[in-house]
């Protein structure tokens, strides 16, 4: 991998961001909507049951942004090159697929950080919710694992796009929302139906949100052993998706999809 080429692609995404207002829109718009909807919902739940869910819901929304933004941005940036029929020029340049992926991951992470910071500020201003009541080490580990999961989902979508073209682009926006209900972002693992539990148990995201909830609701210490287990699963998934991506790239060269762009 050559840094000058990663830098070139980062510059490209930066230019796209400053030239297109709509690329800023999704950094702020959906997080604001989430903060309002779930904040107001927690007020209502408190009114009904005197049970304060605000910290659990806000923590979930704020941390989930890394899974959501990473996966969606990775897929969207690749799709944008498909839409603009720009893959031809990119892939005929010396750029390697690994450099392409690295640049998208870095840029998606930076966009995730902006959304994250904005949500922290908004949650504090609107509901006096402070995410930093959680241990800093936990926040760092959670961001790391959730970003990696976002990359796994994003790269899986990219692999499918390389194999099947733009016709599966709907997955770019939907796969992450299939993962979310099984990740126990807003409710505990114990509360979901028995058939869904095995699925939730193998998702690394579940362990992050379970620990966050236990800390907020029960004051329990963070179980870093569980987080290490989650990290190991994430790493395994990352290796699998990297192999799938490499094979999909070879398949794309075989089918000519990079040249045709559709």
């Amino acid at each position, binding site marked *: 991998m050559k840094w000058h080429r990663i830098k070139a692609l980062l*510059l490209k995404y930066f230019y796209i961001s400053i030239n297109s207002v709509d690329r800023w829109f999704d950094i702020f718009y959906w997080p604001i909507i989430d903060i309002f909807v779930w904040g107001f919902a927690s007020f209502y739940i408190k009114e009904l049951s005197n049970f304060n869910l605000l910290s659990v819901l806000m923590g979930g929304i704020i941390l989930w942004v890394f899974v959501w933004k990473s996966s969606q941005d990775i897929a969207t940036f690749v799709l944008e*090159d498909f839409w603009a029929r720009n893959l031809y*020029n990119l892939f005929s340049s*010396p750029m390697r697929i690994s450099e392409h992926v690295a640049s998208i991951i870095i840029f998606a992470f930076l966009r995730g950080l902006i959304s994250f910071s904005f949500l922290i500020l908004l949650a504090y201003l609107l509901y006096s919710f402070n995410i930093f009541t959680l241990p800093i080490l936990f926040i760092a580990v959670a961001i790391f694992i959730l970003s990696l999961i976002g990359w796994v989902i994003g790269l899986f979508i990219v692999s499918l796009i390389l194999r099947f073209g733009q016709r599966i682009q709907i997955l770019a926006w939907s796969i992450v929302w299939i993962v979310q209900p099984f990740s126990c972002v807003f409710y505990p693992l114990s509360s979901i139906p028995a058939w869904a539990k095995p699925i939730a148990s193998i998702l690394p995201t579940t362990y992050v949100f379970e620990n966050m909830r236990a800390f907020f609701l029960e004051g329990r210490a963070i179980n870093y052993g569980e987080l290490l287990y989650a990290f190991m699963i994430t790493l395994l998934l990352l290796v699998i998706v990297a192999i799938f991506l490499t094979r999909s790239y070879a398949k794309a060269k075989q089918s*000519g999809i990079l040249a045709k762009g559709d």
Partner: protein
Amino acid sequence: MDAIEVINLVKSFKEKNRLIKAVDNISFSVKKGEIFGLLGPNGAGKTTTLNILNGLVSKDSGEIRILGVDPEQNEQNWEYIKNKINVSTAYYSLSEQLTIKQNLKVYAMLYNVKNVQEKIDKLLKMFELKELENRKVVQLSSGEKTRVALCKGFLNEPEVLFLDECTVGLDPDIAEKTRKIIKEYQQKNGTTIIFTSHYMYEVEELCDRIAFMKNGKIIKIDTAKNFKKLIKKTSIELTIKENYPAFLKILKEKKIDILSTGTNTIIFEVSSSTDQLYKLMNIIFKAGVKISDMHMNKPTLEDIFIQFARRKQKKSKMSEGK
């Protein structure tokens, strides 16, 4: 050493459970500093051949060597080659949300170009895009986009340049300037160019040699001059001032192919390679026929293109080869 060597190259694509041979066992080589044209009807395999050579499509079998290196051996070889080649096509845009200047800056960095600003300014002036440099690609006309693609193609001063239909959508004067720039650049830098175009005069003007492709095969490789020799007949259009009936009689006697006749005009064909026309003119003048106007339609590369494109596969197999 040849700049490009292609040996027994084969590439098929799956289409609706059918296997279509886009490139069918072709071999050719391009000398260093040569402009080599790929000509043929749609679906002939020209673009697939270029896409294999620039690393966008993988081959099924055969060998390719660019600047003496087999790029398919490993990723490092492709990286080395791709730094030394470039491609320009009218059909694929650069990033549409970026301005011309931003796009060129990004590609200059991808190709690790030195003196980026200076080089971009020079290219923008060369292709008359300086005033549009801060305009987004999405806002450009197709001709302007084509010129931006050409700027990108020249950015890294490539040793091998693939120009795929690179003048499509250009105004005639800009297209002429572009051809001039390509020719001058090639002469100055000794760049090897593979050129595809639908405009025959362009191929004829620029290319040292031409490969005619059809159904994934190379039918023939030769110079434009030699290709034109394949058309055996030249058509002559005459306007007769006096003795028109005598003139018609002579043509019939000499068994000349008459294509059409008017009240005092006639179009007929004579052999291009013999002195048939000279002899015929002598007879006509001696018979007292007076001519007021004469047009000679020499065979063009377009005639060859039509002839080859319409030729049945059976016939093409007979004359196949270099």
